[in-house]
């Protein structure tokens, strides 16, 4: 690549508009190009940094694509067995109730093998934040059908599309946990446009505040793409997500705290 003319003139502190947040490490992300995980990591790191929580935070990573989350976030972290992160986080939070504790899980982890742990941690009202990345597929193992794979959606174990008569229905875990008395704030967001990134960050900041106030479980689903698993380019995958995933999993708050204005209760337009 030819050198950009005057590059040294351009790279100056006063011209800086974007930089690595200090809660992210220098390690190269293991996520595929265009995947939403990197963006969510970045938002989470920004929130931890801006809220001054680095020394107070214990994260729990899942089994799945985000298994190596602890390589990218500069925080104390525990790696849980598949689906067990909410139980692990319960143990942490019960013993260190003043710390900020979150889990970060995919759909297979949280909504299939870990269904019991998810529902019971929410129902007990554990003071933790659960971040749920829903891309409707098992990304890490090569694109198999997930509990959230939508009807008709293709995967390596539903190669002709999900036939709900044979394979059963997708599970709307976020809708379920919103009905439980132990959850305080339940929302569904995405990170495929700058506006959605901002909304997700706002949701995370709220969840941090609620945890400080010991309000109960906060649950943020992030509908995301999986270009590799869906066998699409990043741009195609975002378009497919907008046209297919988001109508099935509408964005917006599913449960807001009583003192919160109800204005943002209705699902947002994509």
């Amino acid at each position: 690549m030819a050198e950009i003319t005057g590059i040294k003139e351009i790279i100056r502190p006063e011209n800086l508009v974007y930089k690595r947040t200090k809660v992210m490490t220098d390690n190269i992300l293991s996520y595929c190009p265009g995947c939403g995980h990197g963006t969510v990591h970045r938002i989470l790191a920004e929130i931890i940094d801006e809220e001054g929580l680095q020394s107070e935070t214990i994260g729990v990573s899942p089994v799945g694509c985000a298994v190596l989350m602890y390589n990218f976030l500069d925080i104390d972290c525990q790696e849980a067995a598949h689906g067990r992160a909410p139980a692990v986080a319960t143990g942490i939070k019960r013993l260190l109730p003043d710390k900020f504790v979150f889990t970060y899980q995919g759909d297979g982890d949280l909504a299939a093998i870990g269904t019991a742990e998810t529902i019971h941690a929410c129902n007990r009202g554990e003071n933790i934040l659960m971040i749920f990345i829903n891309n409707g597929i098992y990304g890490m193992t090569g694109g198999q059908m997930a509990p959230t794979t939508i009807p008709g959606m293709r995967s390596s174990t539903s190669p002709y599309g999900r036939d709900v008569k044979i394979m059963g229905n997708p599970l709307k875990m976020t809708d379920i946990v919103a009905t439980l008395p132990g959850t305080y704030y339940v929302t569904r967001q995405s990170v495929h446009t700058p506006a959605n990134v901002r909304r997700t960050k706002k949701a995370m900041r709220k969840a941090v505040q609620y945890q400080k106030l010991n309000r109960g479980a906060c649950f943020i689903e992030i509908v995301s793409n999986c270009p590799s698993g869906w066998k699409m380019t990043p741009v195609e995958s975002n378009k497919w997500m907008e046209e297919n995933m988001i109508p099935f999993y509408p964005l917006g708050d599913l449960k807001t705290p009583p003192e919160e204005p109800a204005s943002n209760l209705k699902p947002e337009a994509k």
Partner: protein
Amino acid sequence: MERELRLMKGNEAVAEAAIRAGADGYFGYPITPQSEILEYLMEARPYQTTGMVVLQAESEIAAINMVYGGAACGKRVMTTSSSPGISLKQEGITYIAGAELPCLIVNVVRGGPGLGTIQPAQSDYFQAVKGGGHGDYHLIVLAPASVQEMADFVGLGFDLAFRYRNPVMILSDGAIGQMMEKVYLSPQKERSKKVPEWATTGKPPTRERNIITSLDLDPKAQEVFNQKLIAKYDEIREKEVRYEEFQCQDAEYLLVAYGTSARVCQKAVQLARVEGLRVGLLRPITLFPFPTARIRELAGQVKGMMSVEMSAGQMVEDVMLAANGKVPVVHFGRMGGIVTTPDEVVENLKLKIMKV
């Protein structure tokens, strides 16, 4: 300080000893014959006194993973269950062993396989001693033979777990868990304020982040880690073997038995001695590490050995390995929740080893 004397069930002794040992947390799930542990702790409410957390989980799987989370924060945490529940915990136990976390697990064994029976058995020996979950790892396994040891091994278990950063299992059975005996209780210990340097408690600017994981995608690094574990287990084998001998000095025949079976065998030795038979008993207190060296030594002295277990014959394999072919080693055991009698033991010793 004077120790307090009480009449208690083995299960209650575990619960009370946990509070007094300064445990930070207990996570349990009901299953017969060990539910008294959770019940006792819920009634005692130690969270109001010592600050010890007690929580009833939604499953044994969740309970052991809560233990993982708490242990990774450097806390003294434990769970208890019985055989079918311990099977469910195996995933969590292998992750705990792989992440080198200290914790205490109590198995009040009942007969199996499957749902089996709620009566006492010793049929989980292989599971406890040889692994249980997947991968190359060992638990430190303590085998109490009395209510007193149920209490004493809680504190000992925590100490060993933290010394070696390794999960410790108390392998008890339904008889020891349910029976009442007098027990001397240690005075209340304060909960430790020490934070191990590896614990995840939030990363201060003064240190690198702490990561608790059992994952290494690099085969070379994973093998180095496996070798580190082997070295740790070798050190445990060298330093932590515990056993008790009963009339072994002049013994011509040796019984090897742990837990409830060891109590039965102690009586069997007395009965045999009345008949003029020189029988001794070796009671392993640690099942891992196993008293291999001492049994090998006794193989040079006795004419034969009989492993007495409430199982189809599990520990007998380790006794055979220790005897290394020097003398005949046989197994005698009852199953299905039946506790053998001293008379049966003597009868089978004569039949199987003495051939009389």
